[in-house]
């Protein structure tokens, strides 16, 4: 029995963790090391340069631009996403018929099925087209001038955020809906008997009981939005006007695979990792305070 145990364990663990080590752990250590090197894959020799790459970061305008854009995008898109997703999940939960509820859940999740690049291409050519696009047609219908949705540094980020909400909010609506379904119905019953209105039911029962769900959704959305990339490639293929569409992933990609400056790109990616860690730690702390209250 003991022997069988061991053989089975080794047979599963060794290949799986060889894989985990080579493709998940080693790359983390590797990138850490490379960030202290001048590394070009085409050169035969690459030398350690100490903290030069990190010093260079501090003098790099584009890096700060990319960081700023990423933070603006992440915080505004996540905030709107969470509020709207929760609102929609609550709205959907109000319908009495099961069919209606699943119909609307299906509708909001539909865009999540499509690859983001494909949806972005459609949006670029339909809604955001400056001449015959639908958004500008709408503006003109109200007597306003059409704007350049992705060609103008002032509007590019707003356009990307609107698109991202359309493409991605379904996930969170589904997760919030599952959270709402998990709240015991008798809580609402008894509160209603006490004369609580809909708004009070939401404030006193739904919102507090969704605390854990919200924390989880917030964290996952934050982490994933920090890394958004595909839609920026479509809407701002050349970083956008005045680099208004330059985000961290795009900048890391450009430095590593276009300029072949992998050492520097590694340093930028470590900076992104640090920001994500700090933001998730802060978010955890804020939420903990909330719970105690």
């Amino acid at each position, binding site marked *: 029995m003991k022997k069988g*145990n061991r053989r089975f364990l080794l047979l599963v663990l060794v290949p799986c963790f060889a*894989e*985990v080590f080579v493709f998940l752990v080693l790359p*983390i250590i*590797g990138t850490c090391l490379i960030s202290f090197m001048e590394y070009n894959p085409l050169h035969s020799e690459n030398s350690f340069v100490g903290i030069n790459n990190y010093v260079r970061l501090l003098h790099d305008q584009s890096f700060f631009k990319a960081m700023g854009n990423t933070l603006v995008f992440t915080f505004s898109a996540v905030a709107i996403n969470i509020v709207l997703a929760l609102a929609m999940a609550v709205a959907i939960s109000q319908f009495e018929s099961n069919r209606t509820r699943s119909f609307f859940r299906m*509708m909001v999740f539909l865009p999540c099925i499509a690859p983001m690049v494909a949806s972005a291409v459609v949006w670029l050519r339909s809604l955001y087209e400056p001449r015959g696009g639908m958004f500008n047609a709408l503006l003109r219908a109200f007597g306003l001038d059409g704007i350049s949705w992705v060609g103008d540094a002032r509007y590019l980020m707003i356009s990307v955020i609107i698109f991202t909400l359309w493409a991605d909010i379904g996930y969170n609506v589904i997760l919030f809906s599952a959270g709402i379904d998990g709240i015991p119905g008798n809580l609402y019953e008894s509160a209603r008997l006490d004369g609580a209105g809909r708004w009070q039911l939401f404030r006193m029962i739904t919102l507090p009981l969704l605390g854990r769900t919200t924390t*989880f959704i917030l964290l996952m959305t934050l982490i994933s939005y920090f890394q958004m990339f595909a839609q920026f490639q*479509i809407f701002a293929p050349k970083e956008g006007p005045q680099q208004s569409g330059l985000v961290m992933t795009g900048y890391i990609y450009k430095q590593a695979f276009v300029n072949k400056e992998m050492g520097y790109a590694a340093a930028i990616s470590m900076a992104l990792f640090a920001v994500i860690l700090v933001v998730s730690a802060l978010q955890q702390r804020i939420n903990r305070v909330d719970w105690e209250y």
Partner: protein
Amino acid sequence: MTSNKKKKFYQKEGFRIRLILFLVMIAVSLIIVTPYVWMLSNSFKSTKETLVDASHLLPKDPTLDGYRKVLFDSPFFYWLRNSLIITVSDTVIILFTSTILGFLFSRFEFRGKRFLFMMLLFTMMVPAQVTMITKFILIDRIGLYDNLLALIIPAIVSAFGVYLCRQYCDEIPRELLESARIDGAGHFQVYIHIVLPQIRPAIGSLAIFTFLEIWNDYLNPLLYLSSTNKQTLPLALSFFSSQHQTDLSATMAASALIMIPTSIVFIVFQKQFIKGIAMTGMKG
């Protein structure tokens, strides 16, 4: 009497609110489908018509030219094949490794277990941007650049999948596993005959989640696949659309061919999909 009145009032008020919410959600749904409708409409227009009037809903002179261009003048079937090979093999392999590792971490004791599990969870927190640089160098060195295997081999183990499956394995009743062992079943047989059927919901939702993630992935194919015939659908579309800037109908036909089949599968199996996606969140 008063309570009855009150109840009626609530029902009436409830009805009004529900009606408003219903109308709002209908509007939201319309906004959601608009780009799809527009895409389909333009995919059936001629290139000339899209240049004159792209916003007109119904094509004046419907044509399949756009679809013909995508299917026969571009390596569309290669792209489809590549996407299928990568997605199906990744999903199958990840399901196997996740369930068996989940079983292992849930039901076996061995030295270094905690350490290995923590290591796995830690890799989940590291963004792809950090690992992609070294991973690229690695893949390039072992000669897998521009090879579909570059998207399959590094994706054999999913930390999230192992985590999800372990949660479900923890809930399998002890007696079930023990009685099977007493009957003389080996660990692998227990895994196949007892564990897998018991955690079927987790397998379903992990399958949907993994499939969607890999099918829609853009970053990894962009890094590792370069020749036109080796690309996957999302990657190829971004090139296709930049090459056919002026040819709206072909671009929209390509987008439709990529989006519509998966959307139909989703609509047919929407209940399972939504349940599956919801579960990945609840256990996570």
